[in-house]
């Protein structure tokens, strides 16, 4: 028992090594992974590989748009009319304008335009024509819009069967912000094609105009008028998608609907598959189009129609869109959720990288060989220097166990490994071996170590140098962690975590190993 307590550092090292083994090799061990995912797969470990090592594409691009800040646009109910008015002034689709009222008192609202053809001057003129006085107009969009971009892109990537894709908002210290998208197994052009597919969802009320008798198609809801899209489901053998309309859009929607004559419900009687466009429908229907093509054509239940007429719909603004098949219901759900990016991405001003899976495989095995060769070189030098197996061998084993624990950590965090991270591993081996040499020299080369006390004092002296060196390495790497400089932040994180594992666990444990070896003699 006392032997355990005396050698608690070694015990800790062994515990961490076992923990890393679990994290690396037991399927489903890292949180967020499924046990069966790896069971039948070809993957040997729980390590995640980034695009450098598994193939795929990464795109980083800023969002196209301009933001006018410091505008008093009143409260939220005034957002929609303002959006329409400004869009009319600029002669663009209202979908490319986003008006946000102030969220708190003493704050001002913002207006964004997502059409790249609108110049700052035109935007300012349009705003002034509507009686708004923007304090500033800047390139870029608001954080809210970027966050929505991230959500929508994530949805798009998931629906297009790109598993394992990552979408992130990246803010750089210079104030430039961009969206970073990583998708394994695709090349950059495929990814751009998926993103540029602008699925626009619109909801129309089709009705017979009462004085003229013409069939009229009124757009009553847009994509961003929905607050929540439910999951496609089957109720009473009817595939359907429940939707909730935003409060401010709901009032407009119910009055539009009751004016269009849906107040007592409508029996539509038209199949969605029968029409290519909303313009050819001659029946009183509610029509949802995706990129102009009807995906849902339906009537309105009398009870729902009644709630439009008496204005109670807005109190609980939800209804269901029914479809003919479950597949249609799913498509509709996906289109509503992820149909269209709120704004375009400016690919030309971004970066893009893609790597073929074949080359990535080569990189994976070759970088492993490179790493092993480097370890071999280190081992030879260390052995050549000390010529004592009992000193050199634990040194190499300790340095390797540092890497192993770091790998366990990476597997546990499900951090996708790229080439730059491997460089970080090599940096960790380098500083690790350096520190072990310091410990070894300090303890072995100043005469015989007689007692545990002498050993302790020498070890503490060595540790001062190691701690100081580790602190400088960490200080040198910290600025990179927060910087969006390609993969460099990953490199820095690996190096810092590795140095911490080394200083706190493995290097002290080497001291203990050495102690038991020299004191035994």
């Amino acid at each position: 028992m006392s032997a355990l307590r005396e050698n608690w550092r070694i015990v800790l090292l062994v515990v961490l090594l076992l923990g890393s083994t679990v994290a690396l090799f037991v399927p489903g061990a890292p949180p967020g992974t499924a046990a069966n995912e790896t069971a039948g797969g070809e993957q040997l470990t729980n390590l995640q590989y980034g695009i450098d090592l598994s193939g795929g594409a990464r795109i980083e691009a800023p969002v196209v748009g301009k933001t006018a800040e410091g505008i008093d646009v009143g409260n939220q109910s005034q957002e929609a009319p303002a959006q329409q008015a400004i869009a009319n002034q600029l002669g663009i689709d209202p979908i490319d304008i986003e008006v946000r009222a102030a969220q708190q008192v003493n704050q001002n609202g913002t207006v964004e335009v997502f059409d790249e053809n609108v110049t700052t001057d035109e935007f300012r003129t349009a705003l002034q024509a509507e009686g708004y006085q923007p304090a500033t107009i800047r390139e870029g969009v608001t954080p809210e819009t970027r966050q929505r971009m991230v959500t929508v892109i994530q949805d798009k990537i998931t629906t297009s069967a790109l598993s394992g894709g990552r979408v992130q908002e990246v803010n750089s210290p210079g104030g430039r912000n961009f969206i970073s998208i990583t998708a394994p197994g695709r090349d950059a052009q495929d990814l751009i094609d998926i993103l540029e597919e602008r699925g626009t969802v619109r909801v129309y009320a089709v009705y017979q105009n009462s004085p003229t008798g013409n069939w009229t198609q009124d757009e009553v809801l847009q994509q961003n008028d929905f607050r929540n899209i439910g999951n496609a489901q089957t109720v009473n053998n009817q595939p359907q998608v429940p939707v909730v309309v935003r409060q401010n859009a709901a009032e407009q929607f119910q009055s539009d609907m009751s004016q269009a004559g849906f107040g007592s419900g409508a029996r539509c009687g038209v199949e969605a598959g029968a029409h290519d466009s909303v313009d050819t429908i001659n029946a009183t229907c509610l029509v949802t189009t995706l990129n102009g093509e009807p995906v849902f054509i339906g009537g309105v239940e009398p009870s729902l129609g009644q709630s439009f007429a008496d204005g109670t719909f807005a109190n609980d603004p939800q209804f269901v869109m029914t479809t003919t098949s479950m597949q249609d219901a799913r498509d509709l759900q996906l289109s509503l959720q992820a149909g269209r990016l709120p704004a375009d991405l400016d690919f030309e001003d971004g970066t893009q990288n893609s790597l073929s899976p074949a080359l990535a495989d080569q990189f994976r095995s070759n970088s492993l060989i490179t790493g092993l060769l480097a370890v071999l070189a280190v081992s030879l030098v260390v052995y050549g220097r000390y010529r004592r197996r009992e000193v050199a061998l634990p040194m190499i084993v300790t340095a390797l166990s540092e890497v192993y624990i770091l790998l366990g950590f990476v597997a546990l965090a499900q951090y996708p490994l790229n080439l730059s991270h491997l460089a970080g591993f090599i940096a960790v081996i380098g500083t690790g071996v350096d520190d072990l040499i310091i410990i070894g020299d300090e303890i072995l080369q100043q005469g015989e170590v007689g007692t545990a006390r002498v050993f302790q004092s020498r070890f503490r002296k060595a540790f001062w140098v190691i701690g100081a060196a580790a602190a400088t390495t960490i200080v040198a790497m910290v600025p990179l962690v927060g910087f969006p400089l390609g993969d460099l932040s990953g490199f820095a994180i690996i190096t810092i975590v590795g140095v911490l594992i080394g200083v706190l666990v493995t290097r002290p444990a080497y001291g203990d190993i050495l102690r038991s070896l020299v004191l035994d003699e």
Partner: protein
Amino acid sequence: MVAFEVPEVDYTQYSNRQLIAIPLVVLAVALGVLAVTFAMTGSPVALGNDFTGGSELKVQSSEPISEQQATGIFGDSVVSVQQVANQNQYIITFDNTAEISDLTTAAEQAGGLTVLQSGSTSPVFGSQNQELALIGVGIAFLGMSLLAFALFRTFVPSIAIVISAFSDIVIPVAIMNLVGIKLSLGTVAALLMLIGYSVDSDILLNNHVLRRSGGFYESTYRAMRTGVTMTITSIAAMIVMAIAATLFGIELMASIGIVLVLGLTADLMNTYMLNVTLLRWYKYEGVNR
């Protein structure tokens, strides 16, 4: 296998002036190289695509590709064509006038070419990277300097660490300019790694000389024995990494390896000529002032 011992250098043979002259001259030459590069290109280092914007394709081709042929396929934006050692893979670099989608299309249409890897950085991103990398290296260097002063709390030993780390960075950058290695994000990482490595041996030396009992030369020798072993171990690892990564065509690891070999070699010189001299001066003359 060859055993090695770190030789004991008889520092008493050399005057401070003699010892310090070599590292200072090398540093001056390196700074001169940076100044000339700055005068000629407007930037003290040759910047790669990560910082200027531009594109790069790695293609597989059974036929050798010359720069002329590449220009024929891709147009005037071709900057260089480089064969990956012993493999039928070629890295073609383009300036920032080319559109990456056009380049990949051109490669696909050329026949016999398979695009293995493509990458592009816009000039806007490039200049942003430049700014961030400069700030990053600056902060790292400043943080390291402050830490050095906090650790030793005396001017000369602390500034010795800072100067030698500075020289450790400047010398590899100058050599990169001379042999035509362009600065990339990977080499910036290597330069930062260098700050960490360089300081290790300096701290070790200062610690032995200032905080331990024993004479100056004895302490120096002890520190050297450990420090030189450390640095040589790292150099060995980096040489192997640089060679293996070059053969395998893993650019990032190869450039990190090369920069570290250069920097660590410079560090041997700076630590055991520049730093030792400053410490000796401080120990024998500076302290008495």
